[in-house]
């Protein structure tokens, strides 16, 4: 939209839904003046699949775990993690301690994988393909480890309500330690390649700055928020599973540089250091692993019966590689499906920061700035409403969404 006050005509560049800079569909409508971005409009909803509807209308809670795993290909631990914690809170099932530790270990392996993948993608966005290939080659090792432990390179299928589906036995520990040692040995080199390179610094320093006040106002979570100096981490603030026995500190960029700028470079720092932190967490978990069963209720049929009869609501929060993910679940006695299921993925919140960090930047900065938030659109997209009954498809604007949301709260409170 061109306003009457501007003398120079701006034009709109669409980034998305299909664009080489984006790994998943989203539409950013950039209003540009030459190369400088004047305004950004974010359109989500391009990957809407009706997952929550399926969980509430077709699947039983155990089937919904598999759905939750597939909300996002790379977040296939954190989504079922918080979902399963929500159901366990609603139904009163407690997983055994060994299962908690196994959950923690697989969650940290997912974090290492996700951050390394992100590092390669970020390098590719700035045209530095050499480092892209390097980072992804390094990523092969964690994928081999994940395959060794869970049977698949990316999608891990570890979760069950009341525990985990597979055990990590003592015989597997040496192989796990071998991978961790590999990463410890190349971490210094990774750090040098990413943080000491001149062209990377040229492209990422003072680009896409999110100031601390803005991060607090926009509720930015995860590494994007920590890079702006907001030291919030669910593993530190509300420890769950195995994290309760460990001492986790939220990582902020002043550990390396001494100051917090909140730009893309700081986000690279935070994610790289989190890889190191994950390695240490896995090691501590391996040392402290308690013996015992891995499932509170090994018989699935009995579990399903318990779930059908259960009544209550629960909230599960986990620290995904992208930030805090929350699942809300409400169950009613006698109903085989979930009564209510609401997913709030971290990217949904982090996307609010996109207009702030893109304003004033050049078009050339859009891919790396957007990617520095590590957006996972698949996690985000279950909140656009399509009126299937009336056959209408509409994208709702903010006022409408707000009105609907308030109505729904009132409905749920009745």
């Amino acid at each position, binding site marked *: 939209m061109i306003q009457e006050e501007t003398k120079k005509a701006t034009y709109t*560049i669409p980034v998305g839904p299909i*664009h*080489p800079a984006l790994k998943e569909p989203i539409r950013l409508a950039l209003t540009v003046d030459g*190369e400088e971005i004047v305004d950004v409009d974010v359109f989500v909803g391009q990957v809407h699949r009706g997952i929550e509807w399926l969980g509430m209308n077709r699947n039983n809670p155990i089937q919904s775990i598999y759905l939750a795993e597939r909300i996002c290909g790379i977040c296939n631990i954190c989504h079922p993690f918080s979902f399963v914690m929500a159901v366990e809170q609603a139904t009163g099932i407690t997983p055994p301690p060994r299962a908690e530790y196994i959950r923690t270990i697989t969650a940290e392996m997912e974090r290492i994988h996700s951050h390394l993948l992100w590092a390669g993608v970020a390098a590719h*966005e700035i*045209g*530095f393909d050499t480092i892209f290939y390097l980072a992804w*080659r390094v990523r092969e090792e964690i994928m081999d480890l994940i395959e060794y432990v869970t049977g698949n390179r990316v999608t891990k299928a570890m979760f069950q309500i009341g525990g985990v589906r597979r055990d990590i036995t003592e015989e597997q520990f040496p192989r796990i330690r071998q991978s961790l040692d590999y990463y410890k040995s190349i971490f210094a080199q990774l750090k040098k390649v990413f943080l000491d390179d001149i062209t990377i610094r040229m492209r990422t320093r003072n680009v896409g700055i999110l100031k601390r006040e803005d991060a607090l106002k926009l509720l930015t979570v995860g590494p994007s928020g920590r890079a702006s100096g907001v030291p919030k981490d669910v593993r530190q603030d509300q420890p769950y599973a195995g994290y309760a026995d460990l001492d986790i500190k939220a990582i902020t960029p002043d550990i390396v540089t001494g100051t917090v700028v909140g730009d893309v470079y700081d986000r690279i720092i935070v994610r790289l250091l989190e890889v190191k932190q994950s390695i240490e967490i896995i090691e501590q978990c391996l040392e402290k692993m308690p013996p015992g069963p891995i499932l509170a209720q090994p018989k699935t049929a009995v579990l399903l019966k318990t779930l059908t009869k259960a009544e209550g609501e629960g909230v599960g929060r986990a620290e995904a590689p992208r930030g805090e993910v929350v699942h809300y679940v409400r169950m009613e006695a006698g109903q085989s499906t979930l009564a209510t299921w609401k997913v709030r993925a971290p990217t949904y919140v982090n996307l609010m920061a996109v207009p702030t960090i893109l304003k004033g930047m050049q*078009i050339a900065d*859009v891919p790396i700035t957007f990617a520095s938030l590590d957006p996972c659109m698949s996690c985000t997209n279950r909140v656009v409403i399509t009126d299937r009954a009336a056959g209408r498809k509409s994208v709702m604007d903010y006022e409408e969404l707000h009105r609907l949301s308030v109505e729904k709260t009132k409905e749920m409170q009745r």
Partner: protein
Amino acid sequence: MNVATIIAGSIMLVLLGGFFSMLYRGIDRKLVAHMQGRVGPPLVQPFRDVQKLLIKENIIPDGAVSWLFNAAPFICLITSALLLLYIPMFGQKALLGGFGDALLVVYLLILPSLAFAAGGFASSSPYATVGAQREMVLLMSLEFPLAVSVVSLGWRIGHAATANPFMFSTIAEYPIWSLVGPLGVIGSLILMFALLVATSGKSAKVPFDMAEAETEIAGGILVEYSGRNLCLFYLADIIKAFAVSALVVALFIPYNLSSLVGIGAPVPAGIVDGLFFLVKVFAVMFISISVIRTAMARFKISQASWVYIIALTIISLIGLILIAVDLMV
């Protein structure tokens, strides 16, 4: 030089130059792949790319200025191939060296970029428009250090030679290294460095490929091009890279091996000179294109412009000053 010789020579030169350009592009991709820890495509991949593009559908977008959209690739290829005729190739004299000198080549270098940008503007895509704008900015920024380099060289040679110092035959007769003392050698090295960075920019490879940045503007100028038109742009890009490397060789390394080794007979001397030329061009291409594009990320247009207009201009002016001081001493 009669018309028949010119026509026959041009055809032969363009065919030969085109063949070796594509071979060198294949070698560049292979070497870059190995430097990145990959296997890379086979050496003949550019030939396959050209063959594939020729059989693909040539789509012209509805909103495009179709005469310009179709003409731009042709003009780009023709002007790139024109460079092959004015720059000494394969150890021989430039085919049209009597009709144009290094200054003309500097002007001719502008034309393929102009055609490229025109094609982008004619594409009716916002991505292509942004790419074309970047191409224009890069073109304008590049001219400065390029011109300083060439003119400094010509000026210095002009003090030693009576013929036109910018003609390639004069430059080959009076190589800069034998004219200057130690200060001048440093100055000439600086000028050569500036020209090598300009080669990377002229060939539009990382870090200077922002006009067709894949991750930023979805292919930039080339986003709407396909089929035969894309093939012509692709060929033009390959030939231009080869020609600019040959220009660097002609200005700074114009030596011929046959005279040094003592081969007198024309045919063996021609073959030896030709092979030596290929080695020299390979060295220039490897340093200015392959290594640089493996080791760096892409610049923003503002940064690239700064590199050329400010940093490289200052550097090449320092080179010129050193050569001037060397002359006085």
